[in-house]
């Protein structure tokens, strides 16, 4: 266990400050490289660290393999979300989205390829960008966050094409329904809205907190996480984690989890979720809890599954949250080790 108590090392001012920074670090977002061998993690100080998954998973891994290969200052505010295209890493947080080349990112002094800011309405405070979504077929990037709108940016030209309004409070999360294609967004106002990409209009609204089975007023009404599997959608946050049937807009299964969940995803025939509390929860579609695997952070904010076909040996689940550590699960049953900033 890495938590053996340490002797009091002679600590100068620098060491104390660094230790305090690490204690108060929160990792908000993760993204896997297109080759599948590297993992990028963004934290609340605006730094992005690149870890080498292949080095950390290899049989000769040492302690240094669990440290980042490179850490650089990306944003002035926290890095709330990141996605990877087949060549770029896109990161967003303090109102701007920046792009980095994966091929260059391991070199020291890497500069961003471009940065863009969506046209915001307010100028008093720059709203944050909480979620990024890639729509590969249309080559679009959708941003959503503090100004309650979804902005769509064309990745080739970099122009912002349209903005979807409808939410009354800031947006937490986005999900893509490929078939239609539709975008789902969940926000602080407690509603999940579906938008059609071609017509750029709102198609459906589900106000989760109004349904008694899942609402939990003492937690609030905010929707923290969304995932969709064409006909089905699972969402959670203030209300309980619930599986919805989209066409009929009815909740089919309520998962009995007290703690608010911050990230949820479909994986094979399971639903993985994580949030307040140390564990990554694995649910059957019927609503039964299959397993709860504890991690090393007191609360988790993001899960990432490395399913890149180019690196099958790095197929792991990584979880990060309220600490400076990223837990790596090689097998969904237990935590193998942790990477650390």
């Amino acid at each position, binding site marked *: 266990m890495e*938590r053996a*108590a*340490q*002797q*009091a*090392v*002679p*600590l*100068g*001012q620098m*060491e*104390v*400050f660094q*230790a*305090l*920074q*690490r*204690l*108060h670090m*929160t990792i*908000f977002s993760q993204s896997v490289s297109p080759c599948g061998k590297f993992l990028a993690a963004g934290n609340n100080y605006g730094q992005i660290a690149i870890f080498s998954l292949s080095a950390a998973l290899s049989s000769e891994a040492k302690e240094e393999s669990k440290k980042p290969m490179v850490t650089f200052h990306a944003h002035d*505010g*926290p890095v*709330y979300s990141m996605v990877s295209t087949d060549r770029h890493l896109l990161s967003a947080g303090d109102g701007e989205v920046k792009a980095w080349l994966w091929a260059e990112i391991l070199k020291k002094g890497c500069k961003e390829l471009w940065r863009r800011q969506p046209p915001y309405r307010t100028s*008093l*405070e720059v709203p*944050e960008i*909480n979620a990024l979504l890639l729509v590969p077929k249309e080559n679009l990037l959708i941003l959503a966050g*503090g100004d309650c709108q979804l902005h769509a940016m064309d990745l080739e030209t970099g122009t912002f094409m349209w903005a979807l309004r409808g939410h009354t409070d*800031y947006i*937490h999360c986005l999900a893509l329904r490929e078939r239609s294609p539709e975008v789902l967004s969940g926000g*602080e106002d407690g509603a999940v809205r579906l938008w059609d990409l071609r017509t750029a209009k709102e198609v459906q609204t589900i106000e989760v907190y109004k349904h008694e089975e899942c609402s939990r*007023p*003492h937690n*609030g009404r*905010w929707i*923290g996480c969304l995932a969709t599997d064409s006909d089905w959608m699972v969402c959670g946050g203030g209300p309980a984690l619930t599986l919805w049937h989209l066409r009929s807009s009815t909740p089919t299964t309520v998962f009995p989890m007290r703690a608010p969940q*911050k990230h949820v995803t479909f994986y094979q025939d399971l639903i993985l979720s994580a949030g*307040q509390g140390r564990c990554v929860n694995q649910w059957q579609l019927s609503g039964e809890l299959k397993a709860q695997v504890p991690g090393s952070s*007191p*609360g988790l*904010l993001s899960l990432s599954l490395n399913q890149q076909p180019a690196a099958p040996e790095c197929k792991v689940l990584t979880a990060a949250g*309220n600490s400076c550590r990223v837990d790596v699960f090689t097998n969904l049953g237990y935590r193998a080790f942790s990477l650390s900033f």
Partner: protein
Amino acid sequence: MSSESSKKRKPKVIRSDGAPAEGKRTRSDTEQEGKYYSEEAEVDLRDPGRDYELYKYTCQELQRLMAEIQDLKSRGGKDAAVEIEDRRIQSCVHFMTLKKLNRLAHIRLKKGRDQTHEAKQKVDAYHLQLQNLLYEVMHLQKEITKCLEFKSKHEEIDLVSLEEFYKEAPPDISKAEVTMGDPHQQTLARLDWELEQRKRLAEKYRECLSNKEKILKEIEVKKEYLSSLQPRLNSIMQASLPVQEYLFMPFDQAHKQYETARHLPPPLYVLFVQATAYGQACDKMLSVAIEGSVDEAKALFKPPEDSQDDESDSDAEEEQTTKRRRPTLGVQLDDKRKEMLKRHPLSVLLDLKCKDGHVCIEPRAWPVFSLQSFPSSSDLLSPDSVLSCLYPGDHGKKTPNPANQYQFDKVGILTLRDYVLDLGHPYLWVQKLGGLHFPKEQPQHTVITDHSLSASHMETTMKLLKTRVQSRLALHKQFASLEHGIVPVTSDCHYLFPAKVVSRLVKWVTIAHEDYTELHFTKDIVEAGLAGDTNLYYMALVERGTAKLQAAVVLNPGYSSIPPIFQLCLNWKGEKTNNNDDNIRAMESEVNVCYKELCGPRPGHQLLTNQLQRLCVLLDVYLETESHDDSVEGPKEFPQEKMCLRLFRGPSRIKPFKYNHPQGFFSHR
């Protein structure tokens, strides 16, 4: 053939004739037997060349006869036999000739050999004589060379050169007319002169010695006279003291100090010299004095580094006691310990004056350890910790001299903690000020004191000490106020906080290190190694309405360059700590990580109070911005009074904890 044989017979006949006169023909055979036949004589008469011819001829005849016999035999016939017989007889005769010739040849040979042998013998005899003579010659030559090389002793003496000799020597010695011609006489004369000179010099030497004795005696007399002068001078100096004081020139005092300083052990001496120099040059607030008894120091003439003597001393001690009753092992050990821990009677007193108080540090020397520092006046928080960790990691719990470990083990001292009250703390910076350097890798047998080491550390250490003292004094005042529930915020820090702060500090107490580590919400700090036993721990309680916020504070001795660390636990509608509430985590981050804004004006002594005030503000924001639970009836306990742009931001839904001045609203970082 027959002519040959007759030829042969003839000489025989002649010989017998040549014999003594009585040799008649009548006496043919018998006489011949009486006069022996000497072939040797015959050999001299015959000619070898002719004999050789005869030999060749005989061989030829023989060959011919054999060939004829062969012929006849092969032809056969009656008269062949007679012929053969005839030839046979002839060949026999030839054989006889050959035999004779053979004999003659042998005799000749023998004669030749004899002659050679004689000649050879003669030659050998001469040869031997020659060798003998040569050897003698060589021997004589060697003798001659030896004689020629002989060096007599007289040549080792350096004689004066010839010119000088003739110049200086009196004529009866130099005898110029004799010596000029005869080198032998000359050398003799020179040797004489040498002897003469040496005798004279010996005389001179004796005279000089006696002179010297006389002069030494005179010097003794004069010295006595001078030493009787000393007490008179002293009395004069005493008399001049009042005059010095009147004129503000305390030379005497300084002089006395230097006098006593000479008796200080080397590390303390270095410290004294450097500290005085620094005080005079840079820092008028620093004054240095020496305390203790000089007589004891003089009596204790044991060099402080020679701690190996301890062993032999204690051994000697042991031997003495066996004569009486052997004391118990415990008593022996105790005695040894006391012996080892006996300190040097002199110590230096450093007095640092600051704006609000002063600190006195008294480094003392131990023969075994080196320096310890012992703050003597406690105008401050606690003398134990005030000097701890002046430099990072310098907690003064272990002795820096690695040799001490072995000595301690011998005597049964496990930790210095038991002896701290008597001994003080062996801080590393004190060792450095005393010029002592203990490199970790090589244990040294003798400890060397180094002035340059002391000088290079003096300024930094004094400045650190001053900052430390000032911050402690500031803290002391602040604590007095905190314990009464008032957070003293100075006027130049008011801009950091909003005008109205409702939450109040209710309690401020000191807690022990063990209590801190037992708290359930401080585990992270303990695991990160930030909560050692050199730190001070406090518990603060902030309240507003029904909400109670506990804050556990770690105060590092390096305050205020190292910030205090807060860990929070809020009791309001359940217990919230950084484990289960992201906002509590954000509040801790505001106070711990963003502390640089709270330092206030230099030198930053306001950090702790500003942090506490900010904590109160944060609690206000937290309670007022808590979203109202619609299912519960009744008004909100804390109406929102703070101006906030947005209530929540980001995936963690953090509250707006950042205060913006002068607009006065709250926003997110």
